[in-house]
């Protein structure tokens, strides 16, 4: 049976080969599509049971299995296909077995209900090579994206918000996060990163750390860490493992009493050209093993805990617009790299 396949909860569920004959559940499509095939989805599927990706996989030879959300007219314009857990105490989408190489674009998961149930649940089996673009997880009782067993994955323009645990929980790796946003989660925005790259992302308004339990060989580049209720970035303590790199980030307004911009926990760290502004506690603390390059250039310094504030210049952070206003003609070029994610 060759694709492309179609999923629409309003379809007639006959053969999945057109919008008119679309399957009414994405589970049928996952159980059918093989490497190189495409599944188009539209509308909202309300779940009574979790969706399991546990039969087929993409391959290097034949390509990814692609799942692409469409608008009501069936066009690909960024409209997300929605999987609503309806508070049924279920993980929404779980990858099981060797379900490697899926490409998911424009998919939203939400409303798991229950206790510790994840939106995208990649913590059950070791899987590789997924690409998620414009995917969203919100209002889950566990993590929005639970990435405990996924590696060599790329998350591009994904958002995770208002989840009870972490926005992106990542105890495996290496994975790549490009232009993603974690906001208003009840624990960390991003947690337990190691061997990962986080580029151009935003983590703000989370109840715990913006980036928590940061571990070795991770790069944070041009990322906004703003307004979290605990530390902006907290390195995992007592690892002594190879050094995280934190380059060109904006670490501002951590709001809890004594919250630190960067809590290095006496771990080795390299910090370069970062902005710090109005963190409730010190901008940097416990940075005993470090290389630090200040924003305006100059010599390496050990005077981290007295680091002066800088002007943050966000356009409209209340509405999650963390691009910069460029009002200061003296701003270095690095700061002029906008972080503009029109999330809602």
């Amino acid at each position, binding site marked *: 049976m060759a694709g492309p396949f179609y999923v629409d909860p309003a379809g007639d569920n006959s053969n999945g080969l057109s919008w008119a004959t679309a399957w009414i559940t994405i589970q049928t499509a996952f159980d059918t599509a093989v490497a190189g095939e495409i599944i188009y989805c539209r509308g909202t599927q309300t779940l009574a049971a979790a969706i399991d990706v546990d039969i087929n996989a993409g391959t290097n030879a034949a390509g990814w299995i692609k799942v692409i959300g469409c608008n009501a007219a069936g066009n690909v314009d960024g409209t997300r296909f929605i999987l609503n857990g309806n508070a049924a105490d279920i993980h929404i989408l779980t990858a099981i077995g060797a379900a490697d190489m899926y490409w998911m674009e424009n998919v939203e998961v*939400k409303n798991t209900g229950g206790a510790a149930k994840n939106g995208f649940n990649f913590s059950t089996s070791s899987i590789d090579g997924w690409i998620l673009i414009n995917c969203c997880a919100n209002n889950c009782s566990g993590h929005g994206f639970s990435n405990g067993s996924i590696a060599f994955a790329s998350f591009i323009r994904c958002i995770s918000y208002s989840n009870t645990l972490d926005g992106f929980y990542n105890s495996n790796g290496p994975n790549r996060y490009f232009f993603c946003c974690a906001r*208003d989660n009840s624990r960390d925005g991003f947690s337990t990163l190691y061997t990962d790259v986080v580029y151009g992302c935003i983590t703000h308004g989370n*109840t715990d750390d913006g980036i928590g339990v940061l571990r070795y060989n991770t790069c944070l580049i041009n990322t906004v860490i703003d307004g979290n*209720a605990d530390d902006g970035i907290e390195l995992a303590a007592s690892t002594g493992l190879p050094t995280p790199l934190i380059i060109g980030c904006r670490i501002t307004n951590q709001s809890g009493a004594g919250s630190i911009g960067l809590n290095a926990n006496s771990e080795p760290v390299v910090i370069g050209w970062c902005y710090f502004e109005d963190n409730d506690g010190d901008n940097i603390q416990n940075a005993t093993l470090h290389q630090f390059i200040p924003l305006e250039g100059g010599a390496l310094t050990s005077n981290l805990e007295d680091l002066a504030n800088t002007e943050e210049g966000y356009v409209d952070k209340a509405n999650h617009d963390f691009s910069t206003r460029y009002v200061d003609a003296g701003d270095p070029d690095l700061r002029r790299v906008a972080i503009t994610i029109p999330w809602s």
Partner: protein
Amino acid sequence: MNYSFGIKPIPAVENGHIFKGDNFCQLLPHTKILEGITGLKFINCNLTNCDIPADAVFDGCKPYHVSFCPNKHPKFIEYGLAICIQNCSHVSSIDTVTIDGTVVDEVYYYEDRVVI
């Protein structure tokens, strides 16, 4: 916005207010929020452990209640969750460490519990 665990107060709103994408997660089941406000609408909000005025309507979310285990979430103690004993009601399993037939340690595993 993130109003979870009362760290940031929920603002006073008018009857008929619409919340979209906000996090109201509370530490304890059946915590009343927004008492006395009518006609509220919640879209894609986290309503864990919230008791909402009865005429509220929900789109993509609904309230449900969970007993959080402080042994599993020690950070939540900072927000006011009461400390549990080690062998509390949230224990899901126990591993024993045995040397030469003698139990020398026990490892407790915990899970949050759904409550009505």
